[in-house]
């Protein structure tokens, strides 16, 4: 029992301080870019005009947007560089790569939501929702960088490419921005703040870099099994904490299926 208590209070380190710093960087740059960018897109709104006026006028807002964009670009490039070095030289596991399992996980989870199965999908280090957001940021970010630079230097682009690319870049930039903003506001904020599992705040990436073993059991059981060197079944079925976790998650005591 004492070992169980130990285990349940055990914290598992999930994120390196570098990732925490990267996340803060993302918050700041995304926040600034969204504020200065969307207030330009929705320039007719009173709030947008208030923002622009209080940030020193349209020219100032555009400069803030562009230079923040540069910082964002640098952060993305650094991230890609670190990923490439890590994957090639340091033998990091390619845990962010989207696999077939992610699709089946998503379907399994939907089944669970609809009550077809009585257990959510069992995920590895990153579940399909996190991968969706991650690749959204990376791919969307690169798209934003490309289109943003096009809009910043339209004459350079038009020197080599058709001029129509500039309004096209604008269409892509502004629509992609709206999409990203809505996904973050609705999906990401829900998952990291309002979701009953993390409420009031998912501190794993914001503060400590650690999560409780208990959360690992129902959020990333596959990874936990690997860390503890036991089989997945042991985590989900025989591990007392795991069972308890399921009871908590399901709101009733229930024998998890094999």
């Amino acid at each position, binding site marked *: 029992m004492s070992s169980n208590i130990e285990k349940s209070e055990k914290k598992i380190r999930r994120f390196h301080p570098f990732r925490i710093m990267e996340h803060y960087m993302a918050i700041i740059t995304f926040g600034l870019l969204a504020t200065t960018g969307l207030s*330009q897109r929705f*320039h007719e709104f009173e709030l947008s*005009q208030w923002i*622009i*006026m209080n940030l*020193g*006028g*349209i*020219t*100032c807002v555009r400069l803030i947007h562009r230079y923040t964009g540069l910082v964002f670009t640098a952060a993305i490039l650094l991230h890609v560089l670190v990923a490439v070095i890590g994957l090639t030289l340091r033998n990091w596991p390619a845990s962010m790569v989207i696999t077939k399992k992610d699709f089946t996980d998503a379907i399994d989870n*939907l089944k*669970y*939501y*609809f*009550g077809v199965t009585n257990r959510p999908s069992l995920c590895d280090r990153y579940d399909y929702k996190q991968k969706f957001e991650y690749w959204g940021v990376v791919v969307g970010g690169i798209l934003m960088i490309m289109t943003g630079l096009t809009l910043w230097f*339209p*004459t*350079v682009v*038009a*020197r080599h*490419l*058709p*001029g*129509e*690319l*500039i*309004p*096209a870049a*604008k*269409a*892509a930039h502004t*629509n*992609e921005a*709206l*999409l990203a903003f*809505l*996904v973050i506001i*609705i*999906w990401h904020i*829900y998952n990291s703040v309002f*979701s*009953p599992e993390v409420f009031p705040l998912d501190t794993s990436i914001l503060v400590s870099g650690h999560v409780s073993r208990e959360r690992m059991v129902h959020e990333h059981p596959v990874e936990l099994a690997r860390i503890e060197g036991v089989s997945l079944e042991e985590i989900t079925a025989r591990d007392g904490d795991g069972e308890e976790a399921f009871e908590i*998650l*399901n*709101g*009733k005591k229930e024998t998890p299926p094999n």
Partner: protein
Amino acid sequence: MKSRLLVFASILSFVFLLQPERLFAEPGARDRAGDDEVCLGCHADRSLTISFEGGGSASVYVNEKELKGSIHKILSCTACHTGFSSADHPRRKFKDRREYSLLASEGCRNCHPETQIRTKSIHLSIINGKGAKPVCVDCHGSHTVRKIAGGKSFVSETHYCLNCHSHELTVAFRDGEQMRFKVDAAELAASVHGKLGCSDCHFGFSMEQHLVRNFKTKRDYSIAAIETCRRCHFDKYIKTLDSIHYTVLSQGNLTAPVCTDCHGAHSISGAVQEKVNIARRCQKCHPAIYDIYARSVHGSALFSGQSTEVPVCVDCHNSHNIMDPRTFDYREKVPEICGGCHANREIMAKYGLSTEVVNTYLQDFHGITLKFYKRERKLLEADLRHGVKPIAVCTDCHGIHDIMKTSAPNASLVKANLVKRCQKCHPGATENFPESWMSHYKPTLSNAPLVFLINLLYKIFIPFMIFGLVLQILLHIWRYAVNR
């Protein structure tokens, strides 16, 4: 001719025959009253006339009552009519009435020497003026002579003033320049002010009063006339205070136009006028711009009579509060000015033009920037301190006075010109660059397929994505609630 003289001579001889005792009276016996009696003996006859050599005649009848009522009632006839006496009536011949009046006026100078006459500015202007000058009797009358302001009965004040000012009066300013003070009565009557009395405008002047003013130049006089117009047209006057013309004037450029330069003075006509004439008023000082305008799509339509709806000078520049078009304030108004017609469906439909032009501009980079520049300058009171270039408005691409049809036959020239326009703000712009401007059209599959497809894609994808995510969240919450 000869017969008239004959008649005149016979009348005279008839008179002499009738009253020989008066004609041949003792010279010493004459006294004033006696003299006058002798004269009036004949001249009280209303039918008495004098004929002129050049034709025509004039009455030489003297109304005794009027004479006795005049300021000269104390004088005898001979005091003015020198050379005449009860004993002597010289026969004089005159070419015409004018010569007769001239000689008659000479008599005045016996008592009113040149120096006295010259003390009145009105006399000076007559003396110094050009053209046919009135003589004393023209204004003052002869036997009825009174102070000019007091005696004559005039039907109106205008009548009174025109008594002198219908003549070729001139006035000399201190710098020597002369100005005609003749008022064309017909022109005045036809003007919009035709029913006003002179003193309604010429404040301080009346039948009792004739100010003596002292202007250095003719221009000073014209500028002072602003005050005249201001008294009734205060609203317009206030507007002019905001105009470039007033600014320039107050900076010391006295050639800047004032009310009368555009509207004229006594010939002033109503505001509703032929548009062509409005343009011509401005042409007086801005001939080069007028010429450019006349060749533009607007100007050529106006002058060829194709359309009277096209804007003339005042439609864009205003009539009284004419702004300095080089200011940011004016630049920021341009889309509004053009939009006044080009966003008006009713007007544009007649010419087959799109009303989307204004809106597409306002929703695009340039339009949005312009909107914020406007607000910034109002709210931040910052005079664009962060080195902002003026943002492109309608006129930067379409031209100012030389606006042409964009659907001109030489479309390639339009594009080439557009590149040049772009380069003003976007150095390094190449010939591909204008394609990035969607020519005031909303993107469609045919004119901008890429833009259209991207917009369409997101229009489907964003709601789809958000709907999916919200559904997932709701399912997640629902599952959690069910499990509890």
